């Protein structure tokens, strides 16, 4: 029963997706069923997390083929945490979609594809096989292509062309890297690869393979200088789609980087230095990019890029405390970024625009909603004791003890610039006196909505804000969790033994 527990989140998502396909045009059923299924997936993911936390890393061998030969699914603490966060973010976005996505879009299979996307995410987090990871990535990107184009507006299609091209290119580079890796070692199992790569004498070839992986995952994660597709596309689809993309899609790239560079390509000074340089440039360029934008969703897109830098910096420093900081930031970032894009959706429904120049006066008119939106915005900045503050302590401490002062400077600069951006956004959107915008008669304004419809906007934002507050005020627990994940990642022998030996 518990042996296959790892696979239950996957089974659940694929089952929801298929059942929704059969209810193609029954929108109300789709909404209810999607939310119900997402609640179930939170419960399952919570169970999985509880199980892994108590009993340690678990594996399932597909078809019972022993480890290096068959496809392995592995749930260590990192995977289980990310599956849980995916389920929570998925639940919030599912409720938000039910309220905010237009009926015409829902009629073309929005919900089934949304659950296939979650399936791909869960699969990518749980697999222990590098080629299988590629397949899950493809499931993610093909679902995301459908979600980003659904509706077919001009800006959406233009954004989709850019998004599509760069993501395909990333997949091709990833596939090339797998080919070279297979040619070098004759294995695809990540735990098996860890030992085989370490034994190879031609280090130059190993470094090249590592750089290919870095480029492939780097495009997906949106690191400098490979991020230009991200701000060109993330502000075009419906808000619910932006939310799930902003929260989870770049993070799956970060997860892949974390996995590959802590397990397979470890202890390589060149790769670590490249990661550090990339991290510093990502922090600085993302922050400066966000500074000049006017559209709220573009600001948040650039902030995604900027904050990816924290996680890459943690990975580049490669000490236990730095990686704990990166993991803590990852946990905080998934929740907050999902929330930010939903927040911009709420503001769009209130005023009918996302341009910061035209917005204003929301605090005077909607004080309670403003206070709710205050939580994610300032969690992002990390004003203590809100959630963004704690991981930075780890990162800065690791930077000082490792002597990489430029990284520390970049981290502080990026936090400062985030503060400036959010403070400006707050005063522009909430405090400034609002202009009278032309009234759009066929637009579903928030003030015209019925109460149950409003709840579909407010409940998900509240849900994720509560999670954010928990991460901030319960930082002790999250720190303990991050430290344990970092320990598992740095001392990877436990992972390798569990996968290869099938200790019982």
């Amino acid at each position, binding site marked *: 029963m518990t042996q296959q527990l790892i696979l239950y989140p996957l089974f659940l998502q694929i089952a929801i997706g298929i059942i929704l396909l059969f209810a193609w045009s029954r929108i109300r059923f789709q909404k209810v069923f999607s939310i119900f299924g997402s609640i179930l997936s939170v419960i399952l993911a919570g169970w999985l997390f509880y199980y892994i936390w108590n009993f340690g890393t678990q594996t399932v061998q597909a078809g019972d083929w022993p480890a290096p030969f068959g496809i392995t699914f592995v749930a260590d603490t990192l995977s289980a945490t990310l599956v849980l966060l995916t389920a929570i973010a998925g639940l919030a976005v599912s409720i938000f979609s039910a309220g905010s996505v237009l009926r015409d879009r829902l009629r073309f299979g929005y919900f089934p594809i949304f659950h296939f996307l979650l399936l791909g995410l869960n699969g990518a987090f749980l697999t222990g096989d590098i080629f299988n990871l590629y397949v899950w990535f493809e499931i993610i990107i*093909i679902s995301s292509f459908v979600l980003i184009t659904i509706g077919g507006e001009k800006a959406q*299609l233009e954004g989709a062309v*850019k998004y599509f*091209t760069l993501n*395909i290119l990333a997949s091709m580079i990833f596939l*090339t890297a797998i080919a*070279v890796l297979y040619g070098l070692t004759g294995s695809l199992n990540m735990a098996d690869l860890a030992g085989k790569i370490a034994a190879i004498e031609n280090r130059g070839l190993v470094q090249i393979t590592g750089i290919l992986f870095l480029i492939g995952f780097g495009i997906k994660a949106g690191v400098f200088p490979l991020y230009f597709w991200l701000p060109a596309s993330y502000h075009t689809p419906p808000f619910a789609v932006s939310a799930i993309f902003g929260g989870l899609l770049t993070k799956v790239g970060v997860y892949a980087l974390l996995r590959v560079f802590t397990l397979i390509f470890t202890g390589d000074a060149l790769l670590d230095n490249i990661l550090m340089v990339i991290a510093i440039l990502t922090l600085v360029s993302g922050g400066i990019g966000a500074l000049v934008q006017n559209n709220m969703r573009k600001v948040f897109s650039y902030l995604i890029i900027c904050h990816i830098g924290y996680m890459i910096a943690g990975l580049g420093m490669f000490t236990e405390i730095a990686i704990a900081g990166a993991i803590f930031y990852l946990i905080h970032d998934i929740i907050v970024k999902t929330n930010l894009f939903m927040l911009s959706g709420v503001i769009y429904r209130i005023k009918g625009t996302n341009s910061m120049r035209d917005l204003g006066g929301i605090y005077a008119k909607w004080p309670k909603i403003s206070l709710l939106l205050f939580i994610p915005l300032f969690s992002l900045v990390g004003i203590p004791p809100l959630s963004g503050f704690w991981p930075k302590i780890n990162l800065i401490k690791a930077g000082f003890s490792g002597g990489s002062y430029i990284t520390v400077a970049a981290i502080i600069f990026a936090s400062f610039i985030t503060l400036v951006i959010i403070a400006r956004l707050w005063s522009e959107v909430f405090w400034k006196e609002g202009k009278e915008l032309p009234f759009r008669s066929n637009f579903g304004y928030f003030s015209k909505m019925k109460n149950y419809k409003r709840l579909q906007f407010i409940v998900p934002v509240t849900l994720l804000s509560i999670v954010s507050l928990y991460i901030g005020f319960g930082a002790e627990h999250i720190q303990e969790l991050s430290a344990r994940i970092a320990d598992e990642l740095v001392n990877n022998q436990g992972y390798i033994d569990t996968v290869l030996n099938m200790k019982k």
Partner: protein
Amino acid sequence: MEILLAIMIGVLYASGIYMMLRRSLVKLIIGIILLGNGANLLIFFLGRITKGAPPIIPADGKVFSEAFADPVPQALILTAIVISFGLQSFAIVLVKRAHTVVRTDDLDEMNATDEDS
């Protein structure tokens, strides 16, 4: 044979990237297709090339006695071909839609998403 195949893979990658860097949407798709084929051939090539040696253990043996063709890369290529088929079909439909809506096939004119709004 190895050298010939290596050169061909290199040409496929180079021409694929070159086509993707052009401004035309149709050339973009051709580039994606060429690049995909290059990657598939690369997997095949790096799985080592053998001639007429199927991975079948003879009836009177328990292990392989000679060099054999590795079946794993072939399985990988099969998966990759199916995936890239799906993606390429999507790409063609997307480009068709983008062309009807935006009324251009020049990527440089697709700059509405970069405008300040």
